[in-house]
């Protein structure tokens, strides 16, 4: 069915159709419409699951972990400070190998206080052991939620499905909503390990020994996340076969003959697609690399796309003080041990939801094409 939906509502629809059984959540701008829409569905009797209004994001995640350990399919959503408050429990989710799916809407982390998009909130959670998927538009957000349950429940690792504040969360786009029976066919009910049994009480997150226990648990989880890449691909292919849409962990656009590859993530990719067309029309051999999966990081796929490029420019809507844009760092480390090593130029643009127009992106690309060598520090674009 064709619908006009905001990104937040698209996620809420996906959660409903995924038949999440328990949704503990706490409101925070710009994620609140997800919470509100699910609440509305619950009051109308159309939500298959139960919502719990908890006292904080920390509690929301604690409840997700506990319910998931009991075999329940769960969902929660948050943003910015909410993610920061949840931080401790994010480690508990991955450490306890629970397939929680969480919708995240990127928003500036205070201080100073603001509301526009900035990926630093989710990227700060890079090392919590969660899978992270950055979505380009509302359709992709819907599709990725559905896929994330399949991926998480197969790998027993939690997933963040991430969209940009306002560009995605509040902008209404036309999109395709599949029928429930089609979703049910793709996503059967959860069959999770049930760790709790009233007749045989258990305790998880218990104290373990350092060498013989802790390290093996981490090592196992590390390789399970590596192997998740195969699962992500398979699930995406299956989804494409059933619904006609697929995304891959990365997407290369016009990169085959590109001297310069522009690298983006999130909603900025849609703009970049237009910029590439504009540059091509001017005769510049420029391609585009969209990075959707950030964890696990698709380093092999990134290398493949970039193997013939001479230059790469990464636009980051985030910043790691003391280094540079975070996607830029990750990309550099992905190609460090590859044979082909293009120049990597880092640009910081669009912080706090500042619009990054096709013209800006075109100008960046033209500038990089003219540069002899990349700067050591990122270039700041004020828009």
């Amino acid at each position, binding site marked *: 069915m064709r619908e006009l939906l905001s990104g937040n509502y698209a996620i809420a629809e996906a959660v409903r159709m995924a038949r999440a059984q328990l949704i503990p959540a706490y409101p925070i701008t710009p994620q609140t419409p997800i919470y509100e829409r699910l609440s509305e569905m619950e009051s109308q009797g159309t939500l298959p699951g139960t919502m719990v209004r908890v006292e904080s994001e920390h509690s929301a995640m604690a409840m997700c972990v506990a319910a998931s350990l009991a075999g329940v399919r769960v969902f929660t959503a948050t943003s910015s400070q909410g993610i920061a408050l949840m931080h401790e429990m994010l480690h508990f989710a991955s450490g306890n190998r629970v397939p929680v799916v969480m919708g995240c809407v990127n928003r500036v982390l205070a201080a100073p206080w603001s509301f526009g998009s900035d990926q630093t909130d989710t990227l700060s959670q890079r090392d919590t052991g969660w899978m992270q998927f950055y979505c380009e538009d509302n359709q992709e957000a819907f599709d990725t939620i559905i896929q994330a349950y399949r991926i998480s*429940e197969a790998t027993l690792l939690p997933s963040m499905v991430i969209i940009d504040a306002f560009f995605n969360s509040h902008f209404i786009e036309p999109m395709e909503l599949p029928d429930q029976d089609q979703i049910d066919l793709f996503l059967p009910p959860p069959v999770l390990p049930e760790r709790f049994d009233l007749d045989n009480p258990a305790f*998880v997150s218990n104290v373990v020994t350092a060498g013989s226990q802790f390290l093996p648990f981490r090592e196992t989880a590390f390789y399970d996340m590596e192997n998740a890449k195969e699962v992500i691909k398979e699930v995406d292919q299956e989804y494409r076969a059933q619904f006609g849409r697929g995304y891959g962990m990365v997407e290369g656009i016009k990169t085959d003959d590109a001297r310069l590859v522009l690298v983006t993530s999130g909603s900025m990719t849609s703009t970049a697609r237009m910029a590439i067309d504009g540059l091509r029309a001017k005769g510049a051999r420029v391609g585009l690399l969209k990075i959707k999966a950030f964890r696990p990081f698709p380093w092999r796929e990134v290398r493949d796309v970039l193997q013939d490029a001479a230059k790469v420019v990464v636009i980051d809507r985030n910043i790691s003080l003391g280094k540079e844009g975070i996607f830029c760092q990750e990309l550099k480390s992905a190609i460090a041990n590859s044979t082909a090593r293009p120049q990597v130029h880092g640009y910081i643009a669009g912080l706090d939801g500042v619009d990054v127009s096709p013209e800006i992106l075109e100008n960046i690309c033209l500038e990089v094409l003219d540069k002899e060598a990349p700067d050591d520090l990122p270039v700041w674009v004020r828009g």
Partner: protein
Amino acid sequence: MTRQITLRVGNVETIIPVSRVSTEVFKTGQWSSRKPSYRQKLSPCREACPTGNNIPAMISHASKGDFDGALALLLQENPLPGVCGRVCYHPCQTKCNRNEFDETVEIRALERAIADLGNATPPTGSNPEDRKTAIAVIGSGPAGLSAAYFLRLFGHKVTVFESRREAGGVLRYGIPEYRLPKDILAREIGRILALGIDLKTDERINGDGLERLQKEFEYIFLGIGAWLPEKLGAVPDEGGPILYGLDFLCDERKKDLCRGKKNVVVIGGGDVAVDVARTARRLAGPETVITMVAPEKEGDFPAIPEGIGEAKEEGISMRGEYRPVQFLGRDRLEQVRLARTRVEKEPVTGKYVLSQGEGDDLLIDADMVLISIGQRADTGLFLPEIIDKDFSRVFVNSFGMTPLPRFYAGGDLVRQKPAVADAILSGKRAALSIHLKANGYDAERIMPALALGQGSSLSMGAYNENGRIDLKKVAQFADLTTLLCRKTKPNAQAKSPPEARVTGFREVTKGLDRHAAIDEAKRCFYCGSCNGCDLCFFLCPDISIMKEGDRMYSVKTDYCKGCGICATICPRDVIELEERLP
């Protein structure tokens, strides 16, 4: 819908640690060197109580409406709670920690309520050898009754000899009924005698009698009190309308002499003098001028302030810093000449020294003088080696024993504070000593262990139960947690109005009713005494406070991390934190 998601991980059972055994294997308590210790302590009121009543425990029972349980506890330490609940000078209330918070708990009123409202039989003492020794108790005042009571509770054969017609001594013949009704006294004495004590009244023991008793009895307790009046010395003070206070109080014919008198002068400022004055008021009528004269300043009379206050309400006037020097009159007494005095506290010895004061003599009208300046013991019938001649008292050591090993003594016959509670203590002390000696136990070791704190009182309960209270440590106000307490007014006992009470000898002070007693009991902090409030049990984050039945907890040190929450929250200083080397 038949398909299911295939797990793509290795062994689901080993990807996270799941413990299905108890976490008790982790002895987290070993990480800390601070441990709480659960130990009940002495309350300051109990330390101050001569009879050693377990005040917090008895009040705890009363607070739940269990007056029987409260009385049973009282009877462990005190054979005469109904008496003490009325006439005691209540040092407990002076020391009550609640004084530092709002006002003292009305402990004496509670003791009275418990004695009046409760029913209980005295607890039998521990006498594993079942040694039954024959003991003679001479005198049935508070000291004699106390000695007889505790000896009998140990199972010994006790015979009490009383020279008067009825048992009770000063309780019956000294303290007037408006303070201590006879039916209350009868009930208490009845309970003591019902234990199987042989009472022989109208039997005055003289020198020969004492010889005889030594043959019949293994030990003899002397508790004959102090009935001889101290005299004024230089002033001729006998004859006609000049009487001695205690003689007056215990002799109905002498009491009758004050009927129709217009001006009665009472010499003395002690408790007996107050009773003399108030008795005279009741007999002579409301118009008679009654004046108490004492050498101390008016506010410093040695009597309990409460009694002084009640006397004033009954129209008795006080003249401080005077002493009588002459009784004037031709055919009959007409006036008393009073000279000024000064009483000063000697800074080094603490003794009160009487000297001549500045100012003119005073003549006051008097048609009767009642002299009540103290009593001496009649030591004439005893062997000289046990008499402390200077004080006209019998000499005893710290075990209540006279220099003659088979003779013990107590009460006003020995040198101690002349008060009912102290008399009871001396009887208890002698009873314990005799019992220990009769059984061949080591009194030198046992008696100090039963002493309550720094005070002189002894706990019979501690002897019988090997009690779980640290009798040497006193819970101070600073160690209590009073956050949960509110400031409240004490439940005062009602008194009948002065104009009504001077018409007869009905009891002046009404006791607390059940409701008021429970309410007052709830004001108690239960200093050092666990009353099972469960705060430590509920607030321990390590589930390391274990309940062991009613009002008993222990600390599971294997898991206690020494956070100290239990010690901080314990309102009663029962739990303390201690450094303990691992």
